[in-house]
C-alpha cells in the first residue's frame, strides 16, 4: 500500500468520456474549509465549488488503478451527497487518473460482486 495520499481534482465531464473507472471505499466526508472570512469559498476563486466538500477514500486493493492508494478530492456538495462513509463507490477518472469527473454510490453487495460490477461500470453521463 502506498503511504502518501493522492490528491485528485474534480471537473465536470463537459462532454468528455472517462478514461477509467475505479472502485473506492469512502473514509471521510466533511465540509471544506472556507478560510479566513470565507475567502476560499469566494466564487471568484478558480477552485471554488458549490458547497465544497472534502472526501477521502481508498482505492480497492485488488483494483487495476492505484490499488490500495489513499486519495482525497474536493467535490461539489451535490456530488458528495451521493456518497456514504464506510461504503463503496465508483469514480470515473480522466486525464491519466488525475481528474475525477463522476462519482456514484455502489450497490450494497459483496466486494467480490462489486469487482465484477465495476468492470462494466461507466459514468452515468457516458451512458447517455
Amino acid at each position, binding site marked *: 500500500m502506498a503511504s502518501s495520499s493522492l*490528491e*485528485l*481534482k*474534480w*471537473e*465536470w465531464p*463537459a*462532454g468528455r468520456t472517462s478514461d477509467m473507472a475505479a472502485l473506492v471505499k469512502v473514509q471521510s466526508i466533511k465540509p*471544506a*474549509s472556507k*478560510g*479566513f*472570512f*470565507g*475567502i*476560499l*469559498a*469566494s*466564487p*471568484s*476563486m*478558480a*477552485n*471554488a465549488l*458549490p*458547497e*465544497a466538500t*472534502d472526501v477521502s477514500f481508498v482505492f480497492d486493493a485488488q483494483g487495476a488503478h492505484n490499488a490500495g492508494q489513499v486519495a*482525497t*478530492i*474536493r467535490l*461539489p*456538495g*451535490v456530488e458528495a451527497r451521493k456518497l456514504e462513509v464506510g461504503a463503496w463507490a465508483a469514480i470515473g477518472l480522466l*486525464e491519466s487518473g*488525475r*481528474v475525477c469527473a463522476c462519482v456514484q454510490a455502489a450497490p450494497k453487495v459483496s466486494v467480490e460482486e462489486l469487482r465484477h460490477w465495476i468492470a462494466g461500470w461507466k459514468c452515468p453521463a457516458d451512458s447517455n
Partner: protein
Amino acid sequence: MALNVVFAGGDRVGLIVRGKSSHEDDPSVFAQHADCILSTGAPVGFFGTGNTGSSGGGSSGSGASSRSSANSSNSSGMGMTGVVYDQAGLARNRANYVDAAVAKATKTVSTVLLVQVSAAEAALFDGAWLDMTKDPGSFQLLGWNCSTHASQAFRKAGILSAGIPGLDTPNNLYKQLCVEKQGKVSVASGYVGFSSFGSGYMLIVEPVTP
C-alpha cells in the same frame, strides 16, 4: 417559463452577477462573482488561482488561459494568478454557471444584465476579453478581481465611461451599467445555461420556483 436569447446580430453583450437572485438583491461581497457574455453569446469570466489549500490547481486542458507561476501559498485572496475561463473552461470547472440543470441542482442563481451595444462596441468588448485570455495577469480578491476585469472590457469597448463607483464588486458594476445604459438594458434572474446555436450560443435563464 424559461427565457431563451439567441445572440446572432452582434448587437448586445452581457454581465452575469452570480449569487444575485434578482435585480434588487444585494449579495454579500464574497458571495458574488461576475462573468460576461460576448456578442456571440459565449460566456467568459476571470478568476483567481493559486495554492489556496484546496484540491488541484488551475484548469486542466483547454478552455482556460493563465499566466503561469506565482502560485505561492495564499489564503488571503491577494497576489494570485488570474485565469480566464471560456465556455469550455467554465463547463469543466463551473458547470453550474453554464448548464441550467447543474445550476438548478446546485442552487446556483444568477442575474443576467443584457446591454444593447453598437457593432463596434461589441467587437471591442470581445477583443478586450480575447486580450485578457492571452494575458490574464494577476488577481486580487479586493481591487483587481472578476468585476475589475469585466469593467475593463466594458470601458475598453466604450460601453462605460469610468471605473466602478465604490468597491469593485459585481453588483456595483451591475448598478453602474443600469444607470449609464438606462433604456438599453434588460434583466433576467434564475438558473443560467448556454447551448450552442448556429455560430454562437443561446442563453437560457430558467426561473427559480419554490
